Each structure stands twice: as structure tokens, then as C-alpha cells.
């Protein structure tokens, strides 16, 4: 089902860009590994949805947007906010529920926000943030700026009413918005094939006469190119796009859920891991001589140190004060 990895040669002049994408994917993964560890230690509560396996999608996509573009994501959004430049300290502290977190400990894993970096959540109701992203795109158009909005959601969200209502309005009103379906094949424990009548998610776009794209969501360069086209379409032509990025989640739906079991086999999981997005890009860079193993080790070491530091920062940070309970309910 997933397209074979592209085999076009890498462009040596872009080696810096490739290495940066690799660094971002490793950063996202190491953050999630650390978060998983912290969850197991009881330092993170509630629901915690990890992104491991899907890194190529957010990394490739967000490398194609500008700092002043608006980014909306679902509750599986730790990587997305890090990619906007929010510090791993602020994000980890939010997962720990600490006052130093990016939402002051009031949002948690599912409600990460950084308005300065135009990262606008962190939304916990499946599909409900699609109209929000369309609204930000509406505002950009209303004001005559050339900003766009990009919205990430899982494939299970395409069956909810908000998806259809939003795609219709985005196409009807020619809003500069890019919808990225992160098709990791399972909505919690329900396979796409058991929840949708149409299995090629990108085909849903034709109902709204909207541009459609499909990308190998395990290939960061493919995602980057595809999203780049859609961003251009949004910015230059005020036309929305529905992108299906086919990817795979290595972990359970949330940390509270089994990694495999009734809904998928261990064998399937192991097979999917053979297409790992980090190993894939790393392998290509190594074989093309654009990266050497020592360089990678140094980079990985730095990232591991960063996550140790984020963990320690979050752990040592203060809880919100009791009086914070009643602030931020209303604006004065």
C-alpha cells in the first residue's frame, strides 16, 4: 500500500538541509522516548500519545512552512510544537504539569500551545481543530496577509462531521489551508479498513473539488516536497489541499494502551519498523557520503543530553500555585 521509498539521488548541495531534517526527527524521537520513560515513572499523568514512527510527517511538513504560518495539531503533537522551536524544557515541563510548561501546566500533553511561534494547539477532540485551522486561514485571507494554516490530524478524523464541514468551507471560500492526514492506519485500535468505506483517504478531497496529494509518510523528503507544493498552492492560489501521509505508529494509541494485541500483530509492527524514517534517511545520507557515523553519534549524543536536561528541568520545576486554579478562566 505504501509507495516504495524514492530512490532519486540526493543533492549534495542540500546536505545541510537533509542533516537538519535528520536531526529534527531524532530530536522528536528522543523526546518521546524520554516522555515514555517519565510516564512509566508516574511523572506524566493522564493521556500521553507518543509520535514514535511518524516523525517524517511533522518534520517534513513543518520544514515547508514559514514562522508566521499557523500550525494546528491533534493531541499527538509533542513533535510538532518542538519543531516550531518551543524548547524541549517547556514542552516536557507541560507534560509534567509544571508551572514552567508551555501552557503553565494547565493543558498537559494534549494541549500544548505557543502563541509566539504560532503553534495553536494541541486539541483533544478528534476532528474539532480542523475548523479552527480553517478559521485562522480565514483570518489571514480577511486581513490580506499571505499566511497559511496547516492542520495535522489522524486518519480516523476523516469520518467525523467537522472534517467534511471544514473541507467544504475551505474549498468554497478558497482558504489558504493545508490539511495533513497522518494515516498511521489505526484510530486507537480500529484499523482504517474497519472504519472507512474508502481506504484511500486522499480521495475524500474530490467531494470538495479540492487538490489531493499522497505522500510516503515514512520518507521525510517526500513529505517535505508534497507539503511544499500544497503550501505554495495555499499561499499563491488561495487553494486548500488534502494530503494523506501514510505512516505508522510504533507505540500504542496512548501510553495507557497496548502496543499490539487484538488489533494488530507484533509481526506487522516489526515489519513496519523496517521502514523506519530515521534509519531510512540516515542510511541514504551515509551511503551518499553526506554524513558519517561519528557525526551522527555526536548529534544523537547532544540530543540525548538535551532530553536529560529537559527531564531534569521538568522534574525540578514547581507545580502551579493553588491560586493558579482560578486564573485564565476569563480575560479581565
Amino acid at each position: 500500500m505504501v509507495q516504495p521509498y524514492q530512490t532519486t539521488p540526493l543533492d549534495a548541495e542540500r546536505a545541510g538541509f537533509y542533516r537538519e531534517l535528520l536531526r529534527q526527527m531524532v530530536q522528536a524521537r528522543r523526546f518521546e522516548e524520554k516522555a515514555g520513560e517519565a510516564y512509566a515513572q508516574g511523572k506524566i499523568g493522564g493521556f500521553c500519545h507518543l509520535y514514535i514512527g511518524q516523525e517524517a510527517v511533522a518534520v517534513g511538513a513543518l520544514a515547508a512552512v514559514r514562522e508566521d504560518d499557523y500550525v494546528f495539531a491533534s493531541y499527538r503533537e509533542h513533535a510538532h510544537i518542538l519543531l516550531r522551536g518551543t524548547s524541549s524544557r517547556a514542552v516536557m515541563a507541560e507534560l509534567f504539569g509544571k508551572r514552567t510548561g508551555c501552557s503553565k501546566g494547565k493543558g498537559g500533553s494534549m494541549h500544548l500551545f505557543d502563541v509566539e511561534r504560532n503553534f495553536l494547539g494541541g486539541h483533544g477532540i478528534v476532528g474539532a481543530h480542523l475548523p479552527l485551522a480553517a478559521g485562522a486561514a480565514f483570518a489571514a485571507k480577511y486581513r490580506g496577509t499571505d499566511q497559511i494554516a496547516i492542520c495535522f490530524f489522524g486518519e480516523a478524523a476523516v469520518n467525523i462531521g467537522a472534517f467534511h464541514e471544514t473541507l467544504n468551507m475551505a474549498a468554497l471560500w478558497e482558504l489558504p489551508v493545508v490539511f495533513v492526514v497522518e494515516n498511521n492506519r489505526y484510530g486507537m485500535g480500529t484499523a482504517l479498513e474497519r472504519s472507512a468505506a474508502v481506504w484511500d483517504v486522499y480521495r475524500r478531497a474530490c467531494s470538495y473539488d479540492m487538490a489531493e496529494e499522497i505522500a510516503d509518510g515514512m520518507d521525510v523528503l517526500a513529505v517535505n516536497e508534497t507539503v511544499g507544493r500544497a503550501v505554495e498552492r495555499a499561499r499563491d492560489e488561495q487553494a486548500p489541499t488534502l494530503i494523506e501521509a501514510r505512516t505508522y505508529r510504533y507505540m500504542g494509541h496512548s501510553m495507557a494502551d497496548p502496543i499490539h494485541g487484538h488489533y494488530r500483530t507484533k509481526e506487522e509492527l516489526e515489519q513496519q519498523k523496517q521502514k523506519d524514517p530515521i534509519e531510512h534517511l540516515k542510511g541514504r545520507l551515509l551511503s551518499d557520503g553526506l554524513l558519517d557515523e561519528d557525526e551522527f553519534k555526536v548529534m544523537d549524543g547532544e540530543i540525548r543530553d538535551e532530553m536529560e536536561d529537559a527531564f531534569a528541568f521538568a522534574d525540578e520545576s514547581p507545580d502551579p500555585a493553588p491560586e493558579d486554579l482560578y486564573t485564565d478562566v476569563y480575560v479581565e
Partner: protein
Amino acid sequence: MATVTYRDALNQALREEMARDPDVFLMGEEVGVYQGAYKVSRGLLEEFGARRVVDTPIAENGFAGVGVGAAMVGLRPVIEFMTWNFALLAIDQVVNSAAKMLYMSGGQIPIPIVFRGPGGAALQLAAQHSQAFESWYAHVPGLKVVAPATPYDAKGLLKSAIRDNNPVVFLEGEMLYNAKGEVPDEEYTIPLGEADVKREGSDVTIVCHSKTVAVVQKAAEQLAAEHDVSAEVIDLRTIRPLDVAAVVASVRKTNRCVVVEEGWPFAGIGAQVVDSIQREAFDDLDAPVLRVAGADVPMPYNKHLERLAKPRPENVIEAVRRVTYLDGD
């Protein structure tokens, strides 16, 4: 002072606020070309253009969310629901997105939005088109809830709601659109959260809002003329934040209270008002506080049954006679 309808008072508020602030826009079903299902937006498309008066598909959840998204990045949307009955489809956006965004973002993202439209029963529209939702929205921290009874209040409160930086649920009375009243020629606003004494009195306090204000005023006239009872009529105007001080001050004076609302009795606005009174004016009460509410049933279509389901002046008079012990006890 000009005499205008409630509908036109709302129209004036929209027109003035859109002229005042280019970030204010109106979005909803039939608000533009059709001039509004209830003509509240009459003439606005011609004056402000399709960029700022936006007709939508029938997709309440979708366009409510578009409004919230626009508010997240600083615009000031006014989202019209053709009626609040249809807004149930959008309650996820009103509650989960608009009301909670500020809090769950740690104070980063205010939502300056107004959701408005007619609520309550009209005439023989039956169960799905005849509901008063004040208590549903008033339950939610993060929302403000406004329900004006007169053209003067409707205009002044809508202007304040549009200028407010919080999400405001603005419930208009479907049966009030033709109600006439005096509205000043000069600009004015009415702060949210302030009740208004619609009639002064000394024997009993009657708390009401929206359409029930007219019902209560009729009852108060009859009480004065036929029962020798002087009723003070308090119009809450804003349900959340609730002007507890105004209610308590009146109860301290009259020592008796009846709370009237159009919505269902269970967990209704009246229950909240009674809770405040029993805590803050317990020693001032000479009788238990009674409530008059809509009948605890889905609204029937039959006009005789429908009349029985709505609060009427005679229900209010009966309750007042009980709290003043005019019927014995």
C-alpha cells in the same frame, strides 16, 4: 429617543460595532443575501460587503469552529445561529474550543467571539425548535451568557458583548424581535453582569430574564391592581456572571422571592439564583423561595398544551400569593 424594535436595536448594535472595529465580522446561515432569517442583519451585506457579512453552509459545528479559529488569531467574530436549537450541533466548539482555550493555553489565547441567535419557544414550533438553553451554557466556566429582554438592553449588551475579550453566548428571544422600546439616539453600552430593576416594589422580588420579563411585568401589574402586592421585578440581563448582589439587595428589602425562567426546571437558572439567596440572604427570608419554570416536558405542538408548558402571568401570581401567604398557610 427613538422607538425601535428589538430586532432593529440588535441591527444597530451590529452596524455600529462593525463600523467601529474592522476586525468585527458577522458569519452564519442566511445573514447576507437573505438579510437574516429574522432580519437582524438586514442591510449589513450592502453596507459592509461579503468579506464581513459571510453566508455559510448549514454546518453549525464547522462555522462556529471557523469563528473560534479566527478569534484565536485576533479577529472578533459574531457567529449567528439561525436558532439556538441548531447550535446543539456546534456545542463542541462553544464548550470545548471557545470556553476552554484561554485556560488550557495557560492564558495565551483569548477568544473574543459572540455566538448569538434566537432561543426559547416561539409559537407551535414543537419540541425541536422550542428550547431555552441558558442554563446549559451558564454551566460552563469560560463563557459569559447574556439574555436581554428589551430593545434598549439588547443593543447596549450586544455592543458590550462584541467588545468583550471572552466568548459570549448571546441568547435573543425569538418572540421578542418585534417588541418595541425606546433606544437613545446617542451611543451607549451596558456592562455585562449587571441586573436591572425593571419595576420597583416592596413586598416581593421577582427575578426573571429575557421573554419572562414581559410575563412577570404583566403579573406585577395584576398583583398591584388586584392583589394589593407591590412586586419588584429584577431582570438579570446577564446570566453569567450573575449579579447576585442585585438579587440579594432586593430580597433583603422584600424578604420574599420568586424566580421565573422559560427553561426547564431541573438544574435551571432559578436553581442557581435560589442557591445564592439561601446562602446570602437566609435570615432575610420570610418564606421559601419559589420557582416558576417551563413545564418539565419536551415542547408539545398543540397550542393549548404549549400555552400550559410556558410560564404565564397566572403561574407567577400564584407563586407570589404563596410566598406572601395570601392563600393562607
